[in-house]
């Protein structure tokens, strides 16, 4: 655990940090609902710290089936995720300076934890929204889980769910950090060291 992270690999770490930090301002995930009445579609776009799109209209429609109205305040995740991203970015930068293997493993572990948390939280949220329906609602439908990825038909709406740059960039950042780690494990020594 004393190997040094050298040369361009430090640049990779900084790049990973920038990518992760940038993700704070980019959409993570979105869903577009299309039906005959809404030919232009209704959009919900989730950012790390807020939700955007035709939320009022989506809530309006969801209230018929008794779904909890979507609002930023409902999600603890929207407060945690930006902090999580910021910590990961900071850890990447730190690794570039500390230049120890353990310092590279740390951001990777944080990333994995954040990704795991994100995935778990999304899965449970989607399940919760589709299942925790008010029994007093005007329209009763069978509980369902909205799709996390891909297309799904719920009542008259086709829902298209997709991941976006806020997810992709940290993934690429994770890959970069992994690359740094792998190359250090495999190829440490004068071959790369000579370039500094």
């Amino acid at each position, binding site marked *: 655990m004393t190997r040094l992270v050298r040369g361009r690999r430090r640049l990779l770490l900084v790049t990973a940090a920038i990518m992760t930090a940038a993700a704070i301002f980019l959409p993570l995930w979105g869903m577009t609902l299309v039906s005959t009445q809404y030919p232009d579609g209704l959009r919900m776009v989730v950012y790390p710290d807020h939700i955007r799109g035709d939320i*009022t*209209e989506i809530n*309006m429609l969801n*209230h*018929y089936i*008794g779904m909890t109205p979507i609002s930023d305040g409902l999600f603890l995740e929207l407060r945690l995720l930006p902090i999580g991203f910021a910590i990961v970015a900071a850890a990447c930068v730190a690794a570039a300076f500390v230049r120890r293997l353990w310092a590279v493993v740390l951001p990777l572990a944080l990333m994995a934890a954040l990704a795991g948390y994100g995935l778990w939280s999304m899965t449970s949220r989607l399940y919760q929204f589709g299942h925790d329906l*008010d029994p*007093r*609602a*005007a*329209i009763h439908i069978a509980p369902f889980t909205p799709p996390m990825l891909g297309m799904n038909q719920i009542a008259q709406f086709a829902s298209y769910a997709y991941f976006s740059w806020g997810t992709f960039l940290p993934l690429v950042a994770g890959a970069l950090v992994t690359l740094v780690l792998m190359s250090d494990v495999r190829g440490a020594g004068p071959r790369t060291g000579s370039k500094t």
Partner: protein
Amino acid sequence: MSRVAGLTVALAVAGLAGCGGIKPVPPGQHAMATADVRNAALATYIKPGDLDTYYLFYSGGHSGQVYVAGVPSMRHIATIPVFAPYPGTGYGYDEESRRMLGGFTWGDVHHPALSKTDGDYDGRWLFVNDNANNRIARIDLRDFKTRQILGPIPNTMGNHGSSMVTNNTEYVLVATRFSVPWASEYAPLEEYATKFHGAVTGIRIDPKDGTMSVGWQIMTPPFDWDLGATGKGASDGWAFWTSYNSERATGKLEQTASRKDRDYIAVVNWKAAEQAMRAGKTAPVVGVPMIDPAKVPGVMYLLPCGKSPHGVDVDPSGDYVICSGKLQPTSTVFSFARIRDAIARREFSGNEDGIPVIRYESALMLEVPVGLGPLHTQFDGKGYAYTSLYVESAIAKWKLPPYAPGVDPKSLVVDKIPVQFNVGHLVVAGGDTRHPQGTYLVAMNKMSRGRHLNVGPSIPESSQLIDITGEKMTMIYEAYTDPEPHFAQLVRREVLKPIEFYPKEESRDPNAVWQPKDAKVTRNAATHTVEGKVYAIRSFYEPSRIQVQEGDTVILHITNAEQERDEIHGFGITAFDRNVVVDPGETKTVKLVARKSGVYPYYCTNFCSALHQEMQGYLEVVPAGRMMALYTGNQGEMHAAPPRDLAVQEETQ
């Protein structure tokens, strides 16, 4: 326009028939070949979901409304209520539109005019006149709603000679149809020639928001003013109106006002009128700065024109003024340059009440024998004019100047097409702008009998769509409308940018409510007035219960809190003759007096959602003298909880 069936006979006897050598088409017969019919069908077919190329705004005459159709499909797509109530949009039932209507229940809409920038339509406003009650209205094309009704305009009796928009919408110019003694004074008809007056008016338009106000008026001799046009290009700053009854006659005008061979066009320098007003060369009459053209030279001239003219029009270049005498088979082309020269050289043939009459021959370019009963002229921007022929039931296409010296005027009429049947106005796409499109022409015909299924004695008016892209005109479609179209505006769809809903951020109504919790009803016991802020959204009202005391005045402000297109809510209340329709993001106020105790349901009148029928509430009118526990404070709080909790309350009740 009067329906003078006898006119045809009279003119035929006078030997004026036979212009253009066009064979008349027997009523009800299509003269088109099968291939032409197929081509026409293809040219006008807009498949479901596709959009038309043009908006057609046509006046609804004494229905008081403006109709909107798409062209080329000719499908009627909207009715814009202007001078008459229209339950379909709740117009005339809420406080604002009731105030605008000013106690009148009808108007006579004749000539819609789109606002212009540099002489071309800019898609901001549509102005329409009321021939009956001396008013003018502005429709905002952002939301297709009537936003202002100005009038009755003082010193005006029958606002027919309008609406004429100047090149940059500085003014909408209007002229009184009837002459009367002013300031509600009385003079017997025997003194018509001297005690009666006409007037033309400049209605000033606020360039920012389109607000109309009376700018100035010019006193005219007691003629009957008919229709007008504004100058453009070289004639920008000038306006023209036709008149009938230059005889100053009363009685049976059909005879008494048809004696002279020529009537007059008023040639008005409206920029000079504006200057005269600014220079204080006016005397107020009923509060309006009035210009006496005999005392302020340079403001108004008269120009003789063919007998009993109806339409006067200025070509796209602004160089030619065309006037058609409906009792003479000619359209007269005047050159504006010659008019100006004649004025400069004082080539006058006399005067009327001190207003110089320009020598006819000095201003004249040519009399073109277009056909019988010429009325209105529009232009295609390709050097041709199109004149409607009322008596002949046809449209003539003829060539505009420049003309070769000694040209045979008959040779200028290059095409003629029969219409079914008596055509009044006609409109070409952009036909009164500096850049007409020369694509479509719509003929607005009276007396369409025999052309459609019999719907009883009151038959529809016909509007016929004519393709004018080719050398020959081609009739391609026929549509029918409610009474009674006069003029129209045909404008490319991309010129207009209507909104889809009223954004919440733009709401300025202090009584708007955007959350169920803000809805409330309060009662002022001293004034016996109940005021409520009602929140409306799919599929409920908040509150769904309003208690008032018998005899109370009830004022309800209803906000449609939707921010989605086409989520319109109505508020109809049984037994009170009130129905307002509130567009998404809009707040409307309805006022009623709860005269009789009882329980009166209110409900959404505009189909809004699957639970539309459930969108209802009750107005409880408690008998006088009975205690009302709910009077204190905010009634809305009772029901201010979110909808699901509201449902629980109702279940347990």
